[in-house]
């Protein structure tokens, strides 16, 4: 490999860190430059809404790797620097500092950003989004004096944030426009469980409720709902999903369609440019369809394929997606994708206590499982999905049947 080659990585994300490590492992001898518009070295994003917000882990523990690791990898970081455009013809990136950097290979690890809520007052003080470390520092600052918080959005970020703020002693009201929590990603049964969990823990959940405007002089004082209800609030957090950061790619003429379009080797429509992580729309050979995922395992595994491609090695990305969420004392582990399910099988008592699994089924096959405080069901569900055998709903539901016995 040519040691004078230069690889530029845009974004200092989970995908970026795995990509630079894999580049060196695959024998990349040239320079590597990571450019990020944040001013922190790469950090773990999942704990932001969980342990980091709840003050149980420190800044250093959030770092993805110790600083010495990056020295060993011989990587140059350009932090607080934004790439303004990519010139694919001359193979250069333009930076907001006016600087222009040439590249031989380029990796887009640009991730996603919080979806803005277009209502009046969303720019008031003490109104936050939750995507970055700085966002969470802002939330923590508000939480030191706030007695009440309103969370707008009943997805995983909203629910995890509700649990963490509750732990900090803030009284939380959560607004969800849909008729149930987690509507986009979970079954009605799982939604009902999370409603019960949060209610039991003292969170005031209001379904079918839309925030219409945020009131306050400089800082927030009230959230006004579409039906006119006013809720007093010292702070608010908006968690209504993310938008993939694809603008640099589309402006550069790369194919973008609900994410930067890549193949199973993480290659974009330009031969010298790869992409990995939340920003990509990629094929999943196990599920036989394209996905745009928001998950760390997706970012790291896809980054390995991307790094291999940049080194001329073909390594397909083919993993069953999985996700997790921590709220209160409940650890949810999800394996597979449940879209298209026609039947739901519950294993364990979903109406009492906090330990059960939900299997999502279509055409007699298990598509996915949501395992609540059931790590062993999670491990076995993954194996059952990958085996693709016909499922036996009665045995899945019967706790006296060892799931292991359903494996071939």
């Amino acid at each position, binding site marked *: 490999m040519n040691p004078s080659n230069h690889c530029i990585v845009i974004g200092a994300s989970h995908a970026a860190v795995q990509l630079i490590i894999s580049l060196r492992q695959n024998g990349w001898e040239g320079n590597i430059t990571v450019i990020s518009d944040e001013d922190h070295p790469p950090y773990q994003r*999942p704990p932001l809404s969980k342990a980091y917000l709840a003050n149980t882990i420190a800044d250093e523990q959030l770092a993805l790797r110790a600083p010495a690791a990056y020295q060993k990898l011989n990587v140059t970081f350009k932090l607080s620097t934004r790439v303004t455009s990519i010139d694919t013809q001359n193979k250069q990136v333009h930076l907001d500092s006016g600087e222009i950097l040439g590249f031989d290979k380029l990796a887009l690890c640009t991730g996603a950003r919080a979806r803005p809520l277009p209502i009046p007052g969303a720019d008031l003080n003490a109104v936050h989004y939750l995507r970055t470390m700085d966002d969470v520092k802002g939330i923590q600052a508000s939480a030191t004096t706030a007695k009440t918080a309103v969370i707008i959005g009943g997805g995983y970020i909203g629910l995890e944030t509700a649990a963490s703020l509750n732990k900090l002693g803030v009284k939380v009201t959560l607004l969800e426009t849909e008729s149930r929590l987690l509507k986009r990603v979970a079954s009605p049964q799982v939604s009902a469980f999370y409603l019960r969990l949060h209610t039991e823990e003292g969170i005031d959940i209001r379904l079918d409720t839309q925030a219409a405007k945020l009131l306050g002089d400089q800082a927030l004082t009230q959230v006004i709902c579409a039906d006119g209800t006013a809720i007093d609030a010292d702070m608010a957090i908006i968690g209504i999903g993310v938008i993939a950061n694809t603008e640099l790619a589309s402006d550069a003429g790369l194919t973008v369609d609900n994410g930067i379009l890549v193949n199973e080797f993480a290659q974009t429509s330009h031969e010298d440019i790869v992409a990995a992580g939340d920003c990509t729309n990629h094929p999943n050979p196990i599920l036989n369809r394209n996905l745009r995922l928001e998950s760390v395992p997706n970012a790291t*595994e896809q980054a390995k394929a991307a790094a291999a491609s940049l080194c001329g090695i073909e390594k397909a990305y083919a993993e069953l997606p999985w996700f*997790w969420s921590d709220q209160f004392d409940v650890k949810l582990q999800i394996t597979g994708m449940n879209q298209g399910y026609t039947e739901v099988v519950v294993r364990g008592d979903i109406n009492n206590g906090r330990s059960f699994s939900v299997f999502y089924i279509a055409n007699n096959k298990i598509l996915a499982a949501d395992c609540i405080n059931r790590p*062993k069901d999670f491990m076995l569900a993954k194996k059952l999905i990958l085996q693709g055998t016909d499922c036996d709903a009665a045995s899945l539901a019967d706790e006296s049947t060892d799931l292991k016995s359903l494996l071939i």
Partner: protein
Amino acid sequence: MPVINYVEFDGTEHSVEVAEGITLMQGAMDNLIDGMVAECGGCCVCCTCHCMIDPRWTEVTGTAGTQEAELLGYLDTKEPTSRLACQVNVTAAMDGMVVRLPESQY
């Protein structure tokens, strides 16, 4: 700082300093040791930081907690001294400890 000896499945040894208080998982990752996938970043949910503690050191590390033990139980590569490295905090008493990494994480 305590020195931990990470041994890859092929016998490659890495003797590295790991600060007290951080986990065996982070110690391996910070030193760029192959064979520590750690997909979930240390939340005890994914089972990809599996390691085997040298039997001479298990008294120092203690044993797996409930959730950790359940996860380990479903690994094909589990051995009697298996642990999830994200659940082991490094202490001064671990200076010199030998930790093996399974082939499945490569």
